[in-house]
């Protein structure tokens, strides 16, 4: 069964540093998403991406965040200057033309 792959599985970074979280969506999927889950809280939508542009973003997704699909296979989330409150599990997901999301196994980001 095709999978969405996320790397790294765990990243520790210092406050103020830039981080890039990487995702390889399912190859024939067209819609891409990032969600995050702060420890003990619910999974929250960050951004959706289609046709090489952001189609929707949440209020969490401020100027510190950006997404990119640099080479037609990877889908990245960049946080420019990390804050302590960015510590969370970040999930990438992709979707084809039907309803079905496929989630990655997540990247645990710890900001110290």
């Amino acid at each position: 069964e095709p999978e969405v792959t996320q790397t790294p599985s765990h990243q520790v970074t210092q406050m103020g540093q830039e981080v890039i979280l990487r995702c390889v969506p399912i190859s024939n999927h067209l819609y891409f998403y990032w969600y995050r889950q702060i420890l003990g809280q619910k999974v929250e939508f960050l951004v959706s991406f289609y046709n090489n542009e952001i189609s929707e973003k949440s209020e969490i997704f401020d100027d510190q965040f950006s997404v990119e699909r640099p080479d037609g296979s990877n889908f990245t989330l960049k946080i420019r200057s990390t804050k302590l409150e960015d510590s969370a599990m970040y999930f990438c997901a992709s979707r084809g033309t039907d309803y079905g999301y496929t989630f990655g196994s997540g990247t645990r980001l710890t900001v110290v």
Partner: protein
Amino acid sequence: AQRVTQPEKLLSVFKGAPVELKCNYSYSGSPELFWYVQYSRQRLQLLLRHISRESIKGFTADLNKGETSFHLKKPFAQEEDSAMYYCALKEGGNYKLTFGKGTLLTVNP
């Protein structure tokens, strides 16, 4: 305002007992609801979509528009059902999902 409410943070049952995980939603249009499951340290997996009306791993869920509910049920719980369960509501044309806070189900032997 919370659009998806899962009132139970924790639910513990014995093997073979019936289980019901509650989900209520708030949505002005025609809702599209899902149940996702997350086994220990694994990815979120789609368990059920209300439109398909299928039964996966013995679980069923019926959309009740009058009560704005989409409760997940299984008549006989198994130990391998122990996991985190999330109810989710699709919002908008971009298929954004709004999740509830989740219910941790523990099935005891």
